[in-house]
């Protein structure tokens, strides 16, 4: 397990990012061995996939060298060592790894494990806790993601002028001459990726999966398309205003489910009242909420990637003109 420790001590930025990708994969495998399949799912698609891509785009924009640190690292090392020592001292009181009688296992956990099947009727406990017991939290998370999307858009959106567009397309065309094999393979793969995203979305009640993961996978399919066929082509297929609208609509779906359940006499996000049969109501509520989450996550990821790649292309075009 100590593998990941050695990884991250290299200077070149591209190499660092690649190793960060491997690190994401390693930690996702940890999660599988620790029984957290849903988390592994998310970490695989987010930590190893999307965040690596975003970092690479940034490195491509900002350059790959790192200057030698000018100040001495001894102080930092000292601070780190002291903190680490204190934390290790703190672990001596911790319950042993995997012990059944640890305090964590004794409070809310058993209730979720024992009763969620009767109360929610969804085999995947992670989904039922995520969407129903702690639905309010998840609402907050979705809002955070939405806000991040807006933030990235505010920071990186470029005012697009037609002459820039032609320059960008010239660059794209020259790049597209090659990659014939890749384009054919990816063209066949993309429909399956999107289909698989829907499977993950709606199968989340029964197996690992759910809105977050499905959204990321869906976005990954679109990103793959955008990377190989050029951003302008992808923009023609996926209109950016539509995506922006969708990201808001996802949050809106989530919130309105809560409001509707309030109007039906329950409390906010209490899906039991959505239908005559509480369990059917829970199913309906979870389905709708996961849909909202999926839509928001997918569109925010697409927005983020489009903004990053658009910035990169914009700079390329500017550079091309100045040459």
């Amino acid at each position, binding site marked *: 397990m100590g593998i990941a420790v050695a990884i991250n001590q290299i200077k*070149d930025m591209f*190499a660092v990012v690649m190793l960060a990708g491997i690190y994401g994969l390693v930690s996702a495998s940890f999660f599988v061995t620790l029984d957290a399949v849903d988390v592994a799912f998310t970490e695989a698609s987010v930590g190893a996939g999307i965040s690596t891509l975003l970092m690479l785009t940034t490195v491509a924009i900002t*350059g*790959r*060298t790192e200057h030698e640190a000018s100040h001495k690292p001894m102080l930092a090392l000292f601070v780190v060592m002291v903190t680490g020592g204190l934390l290790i001292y703190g672990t001596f009181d911790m319950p042993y790894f995997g012990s059944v009688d640890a305090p964590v296992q004794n409070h809310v956990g058993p209730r979720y494990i024992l009763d969620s099947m009767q109360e929610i009727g969804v085999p995947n406990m992670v989904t039922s806790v995520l969407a129903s017991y702690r639905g309010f939290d998840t609402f907050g998370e979705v809002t955070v993601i939405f806000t991040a999307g807006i933030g990235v858009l505010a920071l990186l959106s470029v005012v697009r002028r037609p002459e820039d567009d032609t320059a960008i397309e010239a660059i794209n065309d020259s790049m597209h001459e*090659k*990659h014939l*094999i*890749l384009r054919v*393979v990816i063209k*066949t*793969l993309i429909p399956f990726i999107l289909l698989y995203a829907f499977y993950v979305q709606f199968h989340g009640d029964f197996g690992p999966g759910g809105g977050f993961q499905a959204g990321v996978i869906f976005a990954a399919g679109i990103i793959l398309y955008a990377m190989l066929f050029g951003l302008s082509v992808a923009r023609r297929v996926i209109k950016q205003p539509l995506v922006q609208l969708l990201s808001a609509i996802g949050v809106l779906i989530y919130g309105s489910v809560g409001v509707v359940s309030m109007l039906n006499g329950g409390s906010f996000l209490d899906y039991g009242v959505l239908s005559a049969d509480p369990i059917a109501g829970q199913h309906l509520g979870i389905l709708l909420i996961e849909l909202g989450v999926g839509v928001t996550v997918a569109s925010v990821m697409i927005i983020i990637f489009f903004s990053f790649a658009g910035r990169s292309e914009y700079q390329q075009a500017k550079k091309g003109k100045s040459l």
Partner: protein
Amino acid sequence: MDTLLNLASSFCLLLGSFLCLSGGVGILRFPDFYTRMHAAGVSDTLAAAMILIGLMLQIPETLVIIKLIIILLMTLFISPSASHALGRAALLNGLTPVVAGDKNHAGQTTEVGDNPSKS
């Protein structure tokens, strides 16, 4: 019948593991990028196929077998095309292969090495 299936699956798994290991040794020991890529790419595909087939022979449930087949198909699609893209990109960006009889054993140009490329 059961023992036969078990035997077949063990054989597939063992073969897969062996191929995996040889690929791993290859990626570590070979002198330049292209031979390493050869070792990784070729052994990877067959090893993945072998291990997945070995797993398929172990389990009677249809759904699991279908999923395994999907994974297998995806590996067969993805692994060679990724190798193709990788090798092509390396060649186009001026990473020279080590040719037999080449005295200069380094095999890497400075352009795309670890050294940051001069802008």
